């Protein structure tokens, strides 16, 4: 019986913690929101405290930032060469076919 009471108390505590300082699902959502939008004061505070208690989410934030940077440099590197003369010919041909 004590075991069960202990379990119930733990579940309750967790619910309260989640309500006050976010679940990991909600915390990671705010981490992503932060990359694009401003967080409210309450959200900032909740996220900060959540991260103090949760290594996994702190790690997630760092890694998500690495991915952001990775995509940025990926975008810079990914321009392929294109045969412009060929493209011009193709466009002229298409326009002719379209009855221009």
């Amino acid at each position, binding site marked *: 019986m004590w075991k069960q009471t202990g379990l119930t108390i733990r579940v309750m505590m*967790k619910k309260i913690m989640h309500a006050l300082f976010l679940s990991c699902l909600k915390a990671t*959502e705010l981490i992503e929101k932060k990359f*694009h*939008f401003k967080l409210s004061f309450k959200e900032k505070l909740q996220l900060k405290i959540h991260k103090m208690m949760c290594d996994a989410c702190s790690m997630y934030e760092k*890694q998500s930032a*690495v991915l952001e940077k*990775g995509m940025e440099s990926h975008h810079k590197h990914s321009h392929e060469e294109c045969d*412009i003369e060929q493209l011009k010919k193709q*466009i*002229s041909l298409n326009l002719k076919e379209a009855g221009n």
Partner: protein
Amino acid sequence: MNVDRGFPFQLQSINMGKSKTANINEWVELYTADLYSWANYKVSDAELAKDLVQDTFVAAVEKYDGFKAESSPKTWLISILNHKIIDYYRKKVRQPVAKEIESFSRFFEANGDWQESRKPNNWQVDEKEEHLLDDNNFQQVLKECLDALPEKWSTCVKLKYLGEKNGEQICQELDITPSNFWQIVHRAKMQLRDCVETNWFNN
């Protein structure tokens, strides 16, 4: 970029006395290169950029009567191209994603805790970050993981870098709400992070 390279006409030679066909053909010659590099910069995909430039000229023929001689043809063409690009992204963002993929249950318990097996591992890249980002193999893994995402999601995560826009501008262009946007990004990043960890850090 020098658009006049080796070309006998001058920019000023666009005169409305000329036939529509002659003008359009001249624009193809003059502006294809610039339109292409703009499109490629915005969509980061060579084949797609070519298609968009072609569509732009087709639209230019159709809308030719709306072109005002006092505005520059290049500006006019770029504005058509920009519409094509936004249309392309809007379509992508409207694509539905299957419910079971969309659900967070792969990563989180019903109460919002991490699934034990999906918790982020330590990547230990703090000092080696620059190194990592310059690593072509890492970039390759990242690309493969991005390509593996549903198109709706990869569009949303990539958009920020295509034209360096902020969240609000992106939402406006795509015609979606901010919360809708960051929830898509959230879901996409969750998958992307997991994929990169599995294929790079755990290998």
